[in-house]
């Protein structure tokens, strides 16, 4: 798995032609809301659980 493959998959998923150019100021001080973090953690756990089942 390479960075290029991740970039390609991300662009496809978000339906973008190229990666967005974001300034540091755009994300500085940005707080990730708890519901977004919860969703992310749930996906991580699901991914980990399916890996354990595979073993």
């Amino acid at each position, binding site marked *: *798995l390479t960075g290029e493959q*991740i970039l390609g998959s991300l662009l496809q998923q978000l339906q973008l032609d190229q990666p967005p150019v974001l300034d540091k100021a755009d994300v500085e001080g940005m707080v990730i809301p708890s519901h977004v973090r919860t969703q992310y953690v749930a*996906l991580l756990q699901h991914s980990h659980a399916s890996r354990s089942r595979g073993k």
Partner: protein
Amino acid sequence: RFSQNLREVAGRFLVSETSTHLLVFGMEQRLPPNSELVQAVLRLFQEPVPRTALRRQKRLSPHSARARVTIEWLRFRDDGSNRTALIDSRLVSIHESGWKAFDVTEAVNFWQQLSRPRQPLLLQVSVQREHLGPGTWSSHKLVRFAAQGTPDGKGQGEPQLELHTLDLKDYGAQGNCDPEAPVTEGTRCCRQEMYLDLQGMKWAENWILEPPGFLTYECVGSCLQLPESLTSRWPFLGPRQCVASEMTSLPMIVSVKEGGRTRPQVVSLPNMRVQTCSCASDGALIPRRLQP
């Protein structure tokens, strides 16, 4: 029928005369643990047709001397309903007799996907007319396969299920690579761990919020190849290669700009991380997933 504007439409009911047999194979402990099913072959003995019956068939239906034999996998579901999956279907001649082999690998693959305790392997064998419609004599009635418990009591010609397996102790992958040992040509197929640092990538700057990097894997090493005696038996199998057999998704949090505002969003990239590496033969059947 009652309108002069409508032409009469005659419906014809075509009876599909089928003889069906259900074969039941107790499979538990038949497949060795840690083995790969290469091929499952169902052998049915087609009994010879008496000459008098053949003469009569030739007189009544000179152009129909074949029947369609269909093999289906039958599954009983928890709710009491049943489902069938087509495994093989072919024409056989009524003039032939002897062993007929059907590839039922897919049926055994399906059976392996059932949750335990597993029901026996059920194979439904149907013998049908070659063509449906008038003017075809019932040649299919002459196609008979020997059943279990033949009158002679010797069990000759009984249905047989042959299971050809490979021992994955020798022919499989070894799990995760030894991080201490360098990967060489002789390394047996394994999953190698590496770290992908997203923070060092220019395109990811200020875009990827989580994760900063992650463990990723790749399948490296080589696989033990089949001896010539087996490759000649299974010519459809190509070389065994070390490949990713199961993949998992990669979740991320990215920043998305909308209307001058930036907000975090979760995305999940499918099939990004290698879950397991396996030795697989090029050209081998990829098992269909069992539908619920």
